[in-house]
């Protein structure tokens, strides 16, 4: 029914509008295809026998399909160590940084908070100006945090940007709530934890999601601060397989020739990409409802 109505509306449009609309839909369609096509290619290629893939590309001759790559990647312990570390770092970082950021945003959201301007300047400056790589590295080193998880979890735990987002959200909560709480004699703590936070769940979920995804997907801090392979998060394991062409030793070492090893290493990349991206790809549609609210809260202040 609705479709019919749209169709007739489309017919009523002037010619140039029709042309523009069709062009627009084509551009959008092309962009969607450009996103989906590589993904489908990699999914399919991950099942194809490496020699066939290298010589003739994708094939739908299922006799040439194999699960070898998945078996080899999944039976490698370093991948699982990476998964386990990444999960641990991401959860711990999300917890620590979300708490610190939400706490700091509260005084910053109160117009009566004395010192607000001072703290605001102090925080905002760090968004544009910093000591840079080496001074930060030397500090972490002096603090004895090198090669410990604290180097990953603590230095970036307070996010000024997320604090601004949370503050903007708090400021949208009606003042009556706070006044009523004060009249009832509730302390700052009681008001914050029992009244304010429960009505801020959407923004808390958004910030937590950003922090989790950000930590899960990053590799720089781990690359410079951790050198113990037992502590490496997934992205560093992926880096050696996908970027440095150095598959984990156990994955290819049983192959006889160098050429066969190289071919297998190529195929392993496809399966590695699929296996490592699957968790977030499955989870992310569940977060979709939070995207807009979070972005909007950040946009208001700008």
């Amino acid at each position: 029914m609705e479709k019919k109505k749209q169709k007739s509306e489309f017919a009523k449009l002037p010619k140039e509008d029709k042309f523009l609309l069709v062009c627009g839909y084509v551009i959008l369609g092309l962009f969607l295809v450009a996103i989906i096509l590589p993904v489908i290619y990699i999914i399919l290629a991950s099942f194809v026998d490496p020699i066939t893939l290298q010589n003739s590309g994708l094939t739908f001759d299922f006799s040439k399909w194999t699960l070898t790559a998945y078996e080899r990647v999944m039976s490698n312990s370093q991948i699982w160590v990476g998964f386990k570390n990444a999960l641990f770092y991401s959860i711990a970082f999300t917890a620590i940084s979300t708490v610190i950021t939400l706490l700091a945003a509260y005084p910053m959201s109160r117009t009566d908070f004395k010192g607000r301007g001072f703290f605001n300047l102090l925080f905002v400056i760090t968004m544009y100006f910093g000591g840079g790589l080496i001074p930060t590295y030397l500090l972490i080193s002096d603090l004895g945090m090198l090669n410990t998880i604290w180097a990953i979890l603590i230095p970036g735990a307070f996010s000024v940007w997320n604090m601004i987002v949370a503050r903007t959200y708090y400021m949208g909560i009606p003042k009556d709530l706070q006044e009523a709480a004060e009249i009832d004699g509730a302390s700052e703590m009681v008001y914050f934890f029992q009244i304010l936070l429960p009505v801020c769940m959407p923004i808390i979920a958004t910030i937590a999601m950003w922090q989790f995804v950000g930590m899960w997907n990053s590799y720089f801090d781990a690359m410079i601060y951790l050198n113990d392979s037992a502590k490496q998060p997934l992205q560093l394991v992926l880096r050696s397989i996908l970027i440095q062409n150095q598959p984990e030793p156990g994955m290819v070492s049983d192959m006889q020739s160098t050429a066969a090893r190289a071919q297998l290493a190529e195929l392993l990349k496809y399966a590695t990409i699929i296996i490592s991206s699957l968790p977030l790809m499955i989870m992310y549609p569940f977060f979709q409802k939070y995207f807009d609210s979070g972005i909007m809260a950040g946009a208001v202040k700008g």
Partner: protein
Amino acid sequence: MNKVSNAGTVGKAKGGKLHEFLLYVKQHWQLYVFFILPAFVLTIVFRYIPMGGVLIAFMEDNPIRGILGSEWVGMEHFNRFLSSPDFLRYLANTLKLSIFGLLWGFPAPILLAFLLNRILSKSIKQKIQLVLYMPNFISVIVLCGIVRILLSPTGMINQLLGTQYNFMTMPSAFRTIYIASGIWQGAGWASIIYTAALSNASKELQEAAIIDGANIIQQIKAVEWPAIKDTVLIQFIMSVGNIMSVGFEKAYALQTDLNLNASEIISTYVYKKGLLDGDYGFSTAVGLFNTVINVILLISMNTIVKKLNDGKGV
């Protein structure tokens, strides 16, 4: 507690302001001690102390004697960097990567938002958005892994073209790869903010425009553009402010020994000089140079916008 109230009494005698402040702190001490202290400490320790650490940019660092035992060398590191033949190349690589990236990458999400706004069916729109946002959740490493696979001599792109180019070793291809993959990954996600701003456009105004016989171009001019103009402006200034901080993670993951001519940017150079070669003072000087240019760009951009925008800066 006692101390605070004593100070309060003294303040009263001296003048109202200090007293008022101390009284406020006494009443609301939780705001300072519990809420803001952790963020304050982290900011001072991990953001401001390293700012002091940039002093080693002016020193010949001596790892044994530490910062205090190192010798001052003034602007020597800067002179060495600015007079090296590589300096202009790294600066140009950095600027080209971010400016061309901005030129192509900035309009893309705006265009997507306009297109999405023309999709009337809510459920179709949501499904399209789900696909558009998906690449944002792929990590930099996996993205670069995908790029390397697709562009390898036997990869998908070469199979489609019927060629055997090794794109990853071609300096001339690096920027295109970097920027196109950036749009592939980020344009959909970046369009959210514009889609949100467009949804605030007055529906009545748009309907009135349609009844008046406005065509799509006129509707965009009169209704949709005004609704997102401010957002576009803010986003643009922030992007310009980030011109010199073009991402290390992706550039480094897309580098090969053969495309360094185009792919070596200041941040990757800082990393290699500093952490791989251990040339701390020099590396810090290069990083500081980068930051200073960035700050100058940001301030001048903000001033220009203030002038254009009737004194409203960001």
